[in-house]
């Protein structure tokens, strides 16, 4: 593979994603972890652009960074006092969890390296085309109409449920 600007940027995004994800799981201060998570989400959005999924990348930034991350930060602010900001980790749990995670990573990498159908698959080299129209066509006028409606109702139910659970109980 020739080393072009594109591969350079790709490895930049990959490094950014992996390094900040590592920070999310190791850093002791939960607010720092939340901001590392933001960098991870941006990195994944950049990888989506490399996969020619521009709409998906935009959705990732808007929903994750603009929505879920702000929600997480609100959760931190509302539940963690000054003492709770630091995350306690037990040594035995750390060793056991690390061993399980490492074994899982080895398993996944072995599978990825040894599956013949996935070996050396290079993309067809087409230029980036806007996908928004095709996605809208498939969702609203195609096979994904029913899943779309189901997932909308699911989201509505989840949000109503969340509002109901988290409000203060009114005793009369």
């Amino acid at each position, binding site marked *: 593979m020739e080393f072009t600007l594109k591969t350079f940027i790709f490895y930049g995004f990959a490094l950014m994603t992996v390094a900040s994800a590592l920070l999310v799981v190791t850093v002791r201060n939960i607010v720092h972890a939340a901001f590392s998570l933001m960098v991870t989400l941006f990195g994944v959005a950049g990888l989506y652009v490399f996969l020619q999924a521009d709409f998906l990348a935009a959705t990732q930034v808007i929903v994750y960074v603009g929505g879920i991350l702000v929600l997480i930060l609100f959760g931190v602010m509302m539940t963690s006092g000054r003492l709770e900001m630091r995350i306690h980790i037990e040594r035995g749990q750390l060793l056991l969890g690390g061993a399980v995670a490492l074994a899982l990573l080895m398993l996944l990498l072995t599978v990825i390296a040894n599956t013949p159908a996935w070996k050396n698959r290079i993309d067809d080299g087409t230029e980036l085309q806007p996908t928004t129209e095709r996605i809208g066509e498939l969702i609203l006028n195609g096979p994904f109409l029913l899943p779309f409606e189901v997932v909308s109702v699911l989201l509505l139910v989840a949000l109503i449920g*969340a509002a109901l659970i988290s409000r203060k109980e009114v005793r009369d």
Partner: protein
Amino acid sequence: MTLQHYLVISAILFTLGIFAVLTRRNAISILMGIELILNSCNLNFAAFSRFMTPEDISGQIIAIFGIVLAAAEAAVFLAIILAIYREFGSIRPNEVDTLKG
């Protein structure tokens, strides 16, 4: 870039998410681990869509549904965390043990 590049990144994200869920003692950190896992899964969908079926972008639509599910999950998760905090004054999962026999 080959398919395997993306799969390796996704595998690392998944593993880090599992590690966070297993070792962290704070419910919000566990939520962050779950978000990492969901992101790795969406990345896999997009990558397979691009490399295995370049003409068909259904994989991207599944990834969008995945983002919607992640949003719903985060909202309910944080609502439960708030309710637990109000009840127990803490969000460490091992201190919420009323149902323990």
